[in-house]
């Protein structure tokens, strides 16, 4: 569980680093092909948001399972 979260944060960190240091080429890329990559970026960020919410729900469920294992 912890590995997955640290994996995701490392990925996001590298992604933002990449965006910060390669600002102009990133800008050029996002504006190519009629700015279609902006739409792709929006869809990916929605997907990442839904995945983070899944992780949030799984952690709550995990707590319950632990409680059941200890008491039941």
């Amino acid at each position, binding site marked *: 569980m912890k590995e997955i979260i640290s994996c995701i944060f490392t990925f996001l960190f590298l992604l933002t680093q990449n965006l910060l240091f390669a600002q102009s080429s990133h800008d050029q890329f996002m504006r190519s092909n009629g700015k279609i990559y*902006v*739409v792709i970026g*929006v869809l990916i*960020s*929605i997907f990442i*948001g*839904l995945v983070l919410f899944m992780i949030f*729900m799984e952690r709550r469920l995990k707590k319950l399972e632990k409680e059941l294992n200890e008491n039941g």
Partner: protein
Amino acid sequence: MKHWWKILGIFLMIYSIVAGIGIPLKPGIYDASPSKANTGEQFTMNAVGYLTQFDKTPDDLRAWLKVGNDFAIAANSIGVKNESTLNVSFQIPNNLPTKDRVVDASLIIDSKKNGYAIFPSAVFITNTTQQTSPEGWNNSIADMHEFKSMAFPYRNILQETIRNLFYHVPLWFGMMIIFLISAINSGRFLMTKNQKFDHKASAYASVGTLFGILGLVTGAIWAKHTWGAYWSWDIKQNMSAIAMLVYLAYFVLRNSFEESEQSARIGAVYNIFAFVTLPMLLFVIPRLTDSLHPGNGGNPGFGGEDLDNNMRMVFYPAIIGFTLFGAWMATILYRIEDVKQRIEDRAFYE
């Protein structure tokens, strides 16, 4: 089938992604240069089309420069370089039709195959004689063609990002509906004092906050490549960020009481007040001042050319799809909370 609405929600989300990405844009004008001209000169400009097929029907191409609503000049020659590049020549009259020193003219290109396309403020024409006469200027724009196949409107600057309307805006519409369900559940909790409703209200508020934060993030990405910055301190951006803070405060408040009865009661009252502030923050205040968002301040609403019937056929299903998907996530979260409550109750009675 008890789960029909979940299947419907997933189906509508897939439909909105497939149709929203798959349907092409109408042909449009991507760029035009040079952008400066003087009166009385023979002016040739290079127009670059987007998704156009100029070379297929070079003979029925027509072009105009349009000044204001009443004045236009037709092109005297159009040379087709390739499918997307044109050389358009105009003989600009000796005088301008209006009293301005400089006017901006829109470039209009029409053909049977591509339909008509407008590039706003393509050329700034300077009046060298400083005299005003409508001679040479007449509005000869007529018999425009519509692009026949199914397509979304091409808008300058927006371009393909017009598709974000199917993913950014439904997040906010879905958020409003989900927060409404949350507030209704808080009201039912206050009337019945049944903890079940408080857990439902909290679960729906969580999903609503997720949608709001995703709306802010997707809006920032869209803004970077159309307005020029991730955060332009636009009134609607600021107000929706404040709305998110209002809802984050709800979770802080709800979790800061030892006694669950008390936290549920205060949380429910706060949740109803938070929902009441939403229309003020998102719809009323942005209307009062200038905003970059369409439909606010001095801007026209997202309608007409921006939201045609083809887009509506994807936009409304997307709203329903996102809302149903959010409701599904909220029911799962509620069921986790409900099971937790039952385990605690059982431990208490034993």
